[in-house]
């Protein structure tokens, strides 16, 4: 019986929720730079419902997922012993300060710009190639922390009929979300750490189930820069 390659690939994916490769800056790996505290930049999540009549944005669900996913990530990092500041750039704070909103948006734009290149050649994070520049120091909230944490997620949620159709024609038949985590030096703007896990689930419904994926994504980060510090690396 001829087994189609795409079906095999689909089965492999079905069986695993992957935390794909992780990339550390050489200074982080060597211990020259250490991260104990992080400022959480507002997460950006884009979910799309894909049905037989096309794709529709899931605006409300995306915004709720931004909150839920951020909680999951913050909890994981706190469990690993890191100090995570989520309050400084919380929606209630940003709402009152348009200059702060602009400063955050400018850095988010810079990160997205760098992310496009990192996604093409993520291995170059290990050469210390990517940076947002010291414009990061324009963020007042970044003064008391070692690093900024950027979170991106894009996911598609298929309707039942779309899933059935996908199975029929060996097309897309799963809910899927691709995430990007970037840890950025709060003084120099250097990208210290980059991970891009994939989860085969509906992020809007199951954000809390991504804890396992998130933990795996920060495994090498915790190794390179343990929260308690490694005296041997100083």
């Amino acid at each position, binding site marked *: 019986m001829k087994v189609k390659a795409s079906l095999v690939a689909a089965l492999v994916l079905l069986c695993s929720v992957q935390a794909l490769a992780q990339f550390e800056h050489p200074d982080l790996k060597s211990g020259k730079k250490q991260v104990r505290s992080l400022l959480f930049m507002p997460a950006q999540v884009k979910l799309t419902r894909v049905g037989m009549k096309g794709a*529709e944005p899931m*605006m409300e669900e995306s915004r709720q997922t931004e909150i839920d996913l951020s909680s999951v990530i913050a909890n994981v990092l706190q469990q690993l012993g890191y100090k995570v500041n989520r309050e400084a750039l919380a929606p209630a704070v940003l709402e009152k300060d348009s200059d702060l909103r602009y400063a955050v948006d400018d850095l988010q734009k810079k990160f997205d710009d760098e992310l*496009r290149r990192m996604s093409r050649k993520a291995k170059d994070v290990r050469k210390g190639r990517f940076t947002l*520049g010291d414009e990061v*120091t*324009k963020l007042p909230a970044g003064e008391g922390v070692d690093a900024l944490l950027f979170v991106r997620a894009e996911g598609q949620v298929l309707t039942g009929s*779309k899933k059935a159709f996908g199975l029929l*024609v*060996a097309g897309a038949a799963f809910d899927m979300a691709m995430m990007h985590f970037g840890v950025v030096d709060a003084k120099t703007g250097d990208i210290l750490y980059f991970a891009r896990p994939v989860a085969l689930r509906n992020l809007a419904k199951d954000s809390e189930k991504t804890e396992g994926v998130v933990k795996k994504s920060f495994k090498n980060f915790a190794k390179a820069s343990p929260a308690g510090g490694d005296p041997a690396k100083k």
Partner: protein
Amino acid sequence: MGQLAVKTRFLAVLLLALSCYLTGQESGGPAPAQKPQETSSGTGEKLSLPHQAQDFKFGKIDLEMLKQVDAFDSYMEEKGWVYNDPETNAYLDRLGSSLVPAQTPENVKWRFRATRDLEVNAFALPNGSIYVNSGLLSRMENEAQVVGVLAHEITHVVNRHTYLGYRSSRKKMVAIDIMMAGAKGAGFAGGSAAIVATAMGNMLPLIVISTIYGYSRELEHEADVYAVNALQLRGYDLREFSRGFELLRKGPEVDLSKEPVFWASHPKLADRVQYVAKMATQLQPNATSLRVGEREYREVTQNVIRYNAGLAIMLGRPRTAVAIAEHLIAEEPNNADNLALLGDAYRTLGARTPVPVQEELTDESKNEARKRIRKMTMVEYDKALLGDAHGVERWEANVARSEETYRKALAMDPNNANSHRGLGFLYERKDQRTTAAEEFRKYVELAPGAKDARQIKLHIESLEKAAPAGAPAPEHP
């Protein structure tokens, strides 16, 4: 908002082209264009609500879309994409409000705001929110040109173009999906069929595609005719509407986009310049005492234009910043801040000429530039430009111009903080550490509460540390 990847844009436009082709002449598509009325100019009269708006009945899909659009509106505000300058937005609101029909269509709340976006573009959401990018405001010369843009966008809202387009495309989706499945079944084609099918599955919301990349030719023409009508009623010079299109055709940067956004889409613009100019000649044959509104426009939009120049510097478009700063200086030659802005723009040009040279405009050069921008970081890109023929000469010339401009600003106003800051970066780049630190210190003394005070203090610290001579200085705008 305006940050779509080139690949995604290509797929989005492919989809739109496909859906526009399939839409054709079916009913429920574009309504007949309104004939411009022959009223006397400047009556202050408001246009009545066209029948498309009156007859439109909201369905479930439309209301779902409206919900998403309303959520998107707040999202724009939350993310800091809206430029919250009260003067600019009040001005846009005043202009826009004078153009809307007397009767507000159902489920529309008019709002006119500027966005922090370099793209020369404006867009309307079907709920009545109309956004004009800071990039477009910087390119326009007067009120009449901006009013044309606003009137055009208002038509898309009033005539429910987004809802109609969305309904139409949804009908097509199922047919296309089945077609794609058929193609796959026939031979497991993969290749181009798979790419289109993927695009179908991952497409951007139609509202974004339509508002940013354009509706069908008929709908856009309808919007232009309404705009002409509205401008005429308000007594504006219709030639300025045509002139506005001309201004959009060519900007200070080398246009590397393969699929330009609608307001800068060249083939469509060429047609529009012509037919609007023709309408202007017919409707206003003896053009005298018509409103242009150049002076007020310049006064009110100074802040947003200056802001746009700063954005251009930050986002690596120094030529745009040079063009804007030169314009501001032409308007107000004795303004030290404008000179400091020009100094910043020259400094961040690096090894680029202030205006693109002919060699850069060939297809080969553009492809090379696209490849570099795709692969290189901004720092690497600037270094690569330095390595090109005459790169170092150009860099030195820009540094000299920059320094001269800062000195001019300081001659006008010795306490111009931005000039000291700029000189600090300049001397730091030239490895003149002591002088750089002095200039940075002056900046911090004059502007202790500046948003980048902490950044500059860190620079001072780093310069005062014993760095080896010739160590590479950081690259900064």
